[in-house]
């Protein structure tokens, strides 16, 4: 047990300000942490709590009060499974510590158990908060006794275990069965596409259900034999036992809950003991193909340094599985998520009225659309963390940035351009597709594209500035460069907070003054341009200075 605990401790690494001005960094991190908690975590927790509260209240009188929270926890488990696949794959098979752990006299289950626990803790902090918020919504709406809070706390920490165990077992089996694939990076990429396929599958499933608006949802949830909940109970039985122990105030269900988790952990460790070493030893992370070297050398031509640097950034992003799934794939996934939301709300009066409003040139609808596009562009650019991890991704070879004869600002510009191209191009393609689908006019489409590009470039430069303050340069595998990186989280918090203030102010100006939507849109453009200039100047002076000051 002590070996397991020591290994977990060693595997969980915290980001410590590593350079000289520790006090300055601590203050910065404190402020950013406060903004992140206020800007992302609390609003999200509050939103989840309110939704569960609102759904639970009408269900309590019908004796099905637990259905909303149960369905929500199933949804959380599904998301945990979807996003856990790649994480578990990287942690189990592609992290740099494997080469150090395998030669040690440790049993496979000890390595796997500690790696799994470290991944669970570092991956699930946000999930813990969402789970406790959902329980809070349910407990308050249904007036459960104090005992329920203790169960909620148990659930908060332990609910993500089973979905991640599913991921772990699937990953080990895939690796066992994929012995014929020489290049294991391919396996990792296939998993990325599998994740996308699962998300698309959910979208298709929801689409086939014909959409679910909130009235239908309450109606469906009030049915004690709700098929969706019943099916999910078979897949994630621990959720049902935990919620039932809360509803019935019985210890029996809690014992069942612990038993299900115990059984899952037991099976997982047995599988790990049996096959982990066989699948982890001798992993070849890349495969080399030999081409005629003379032809290759003859094809090397002189180009602009920035163009080659740009190509290098793209190659590393697309070839590194952790970057590909976290930075690139997310740009493919969000429209599917958005489509699911659209299907879930497709028949509400608000959306129908909103689309009708855009078609008829209603000023409010057009303004909301442009504000939404701007908000989405900010969110996606921050979430794909191409910019906010641009310096962190350099890792141990950060010194390269400093000793090559290319100015820091030129390198920052290239890194920002990568983010702008990937995030912006994705946004514009989807904006144009949506414009065709919703039959938007050319003028509105152009406005949307411009506002999207301005939002993307602002967050890109701002993200690089945020990363330059204290890039996380010590990581042993690429996934670690992104996960548990506070810079990514802080950038998202600050960008979203700024965007929320901007959009809310713009909308309030429209509602409560005589200013027309066109004036407000022009004001939005001007504001975004100012934000772009500020973030560019921050990069030119402060980020370049931060890079220069870093001792590596």
């Amino acid at each position, binding site marked *: 047990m002590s070996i397991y605990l020591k290994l977990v401790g060693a595997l969980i690494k915290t980001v410590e300000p590593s350079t*000289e001005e520790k006090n300055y960094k601590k203050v910065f991190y404190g402020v950013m942490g406060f903004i992140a908690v206020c800007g992302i975590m609390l609003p999200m927790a509050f939103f989840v709590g309110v939704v569960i509260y609102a759904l639970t209240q009408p269900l309590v009188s019908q004796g099905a009060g637990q259905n909303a929270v149960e369905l929500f926890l199933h949804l959380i488990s599904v998301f945990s499974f979807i996003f856990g696949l790649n994480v578990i794959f990287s942690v189990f098979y592609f992290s740099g510590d494997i080469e150090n752990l395998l030669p040690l006299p440790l049993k496979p289950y000890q390595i796997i158990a500690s790696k799994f626990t470290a991944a669970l803790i570092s991956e699930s902090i946000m999930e813990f908060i969402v789970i406790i918020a959902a329980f809070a919504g349910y407990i308050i709406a249904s007036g459960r006794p104090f005992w329920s809070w203790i169960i909620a706390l148990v659930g908060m920490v332990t609910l993500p275990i089973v979905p991640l165990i599913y991921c772990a077992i699937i990953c080990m089996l895939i690796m066992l069965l994929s012995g014929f694939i020489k290049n294991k990076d391919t396996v990792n990429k296939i998993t990325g596409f599998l994740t996308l396929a699962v998300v698309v599958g959910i979208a298709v499933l929801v689409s086939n259900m014909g959409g679910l608006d909130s009235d239908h949802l309450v109606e469906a949830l009030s049915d004690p034999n709700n098929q969706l909940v019943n099916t999910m109970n078979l897949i994630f039985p621990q959720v049902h036992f935990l919620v039932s122990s809360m509803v019935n105030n019985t210890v029996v269900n809690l014992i069942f809950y612990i038993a299900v988790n115990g059984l899952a952990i037991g099976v997982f460790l047995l599988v790990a003991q049996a096959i982990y070493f066989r699948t982890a030893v001798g992993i*070849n*992370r*890349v*495969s*080399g*193909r*030999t*081409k005629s*070297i003379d032809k*290759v*050398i*003859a094809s*090397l*031509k*002189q*180009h*602009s*340094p920035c*163009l*080659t*640097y740009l*190509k*290098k950034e793209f*190659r*590393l992003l697309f*070839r*590194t599985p952790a970057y590909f799934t976290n930075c690139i794939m997310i740009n493919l996934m969000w429209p599917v998520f958005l489509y699911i939301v659209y299907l879930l709300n497709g028949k509400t009066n608000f959306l129908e009225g909103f689309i009708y409003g855009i078609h008829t040139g209603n000023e409010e609808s057009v303004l909301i659309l442009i504000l939404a596009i701007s908000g989405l562009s900010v969110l996606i650019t921050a979430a794909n963390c191409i910019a906010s991890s641009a310096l962190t991704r350099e890792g*141990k*070879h950060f*010194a*390269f940035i*400093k*000793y*090559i*004869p*290319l*100015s820091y600002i030129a390198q920052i510009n290239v890194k920002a351009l990568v983010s702008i191209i990937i995030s912006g191009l994705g946004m514009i393609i989807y904006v144009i597709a949506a414009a065709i689908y919703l039959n938007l006019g050319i003028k509105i489409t152009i406005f949307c594209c411009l506002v999207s590009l301005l939002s993307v470039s602002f967050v890109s430069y701002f993200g690089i500035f945020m990363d330059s303050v204290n890039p996380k340069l010590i990581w042993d595998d690429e996934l670690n460069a992104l996960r548990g990186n506070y810079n990514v989280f802080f950038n998202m918090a600050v960008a979203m907070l700024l965007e929320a203030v901007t959009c809310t102010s713009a909308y309030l100006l429209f509602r409560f003054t005589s200013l027309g939507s066109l004036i407000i849109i022009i004001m939005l453009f001007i504001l975004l341009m100012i934000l772009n200039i500020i973030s560019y100047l921050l990069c030119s002076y402060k980020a370049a200075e931060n890079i*220069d*000051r870093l*001792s*590596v």
Partner: protein
Amino acid sequence: MIKFENVTKVYNKTVRAVDDISFSVKGGEIVGFIGPNGSGKTTTMKMLTGIIKADVGKITVNGFNVRKDPIKAKESIGYIADSPDMFLRLKGTEFLDLIGDIYRVPTEKRQERIQEFAKRFELTEALSSPIMSYSHGMRQKIMVIAALMHDPPVWILDEPMVGLDPKSAFELKEMMREHAKNGNAVFFSTHVLEVAEKLCDRVIIIKKGHILYDGTLEKLESTNKNESLEKIFLELTDK
């Protein structure tokens, strides 16, 4: 070609990694930089290449001040870092092409030098494979090729022999001699005293950020007769 004037670097306001050092390396010279672990060798080399900022003092490379004219200074340098694990997902040729473009090496010269160096280091076949598939020694070789491809007047090599097989180490030593013979400066750090003994015109011995000795090996040995270089080094650095 390299000039350090009263240079100091302090970490965390307490650790004086390099303390008021001054030295120079002229064109045509091969200078070895020797010292125990943590003596300040890598810090000195990193200040020279612009990776670390000196707190006090002036560093000049090929006539360019490293702080005031960093791009020109960096263009004059061919630097081999202490770790060759860089851009592992790129293929060898892609990495060399990147370096060629950054240092603005013309197409013909680039192709010619890559061919020549790859042949000398027996790396030709591996160039089209990702660097990740290379052994440590092969990674070190590609870093050497990258550092020397633009034919810089100043070579700064941090432990360049580590991981190289005997033939490649011999080739690199030959190349260092050829480079110095053409009027260029070679400044390299090493732990292997025999390498310094056979290769260097001059050595600089550093300990705890202070230069203990700057001069020729012959002079050092003549003042400590009947003692091996190893013993002299240990006596100097154990004080």
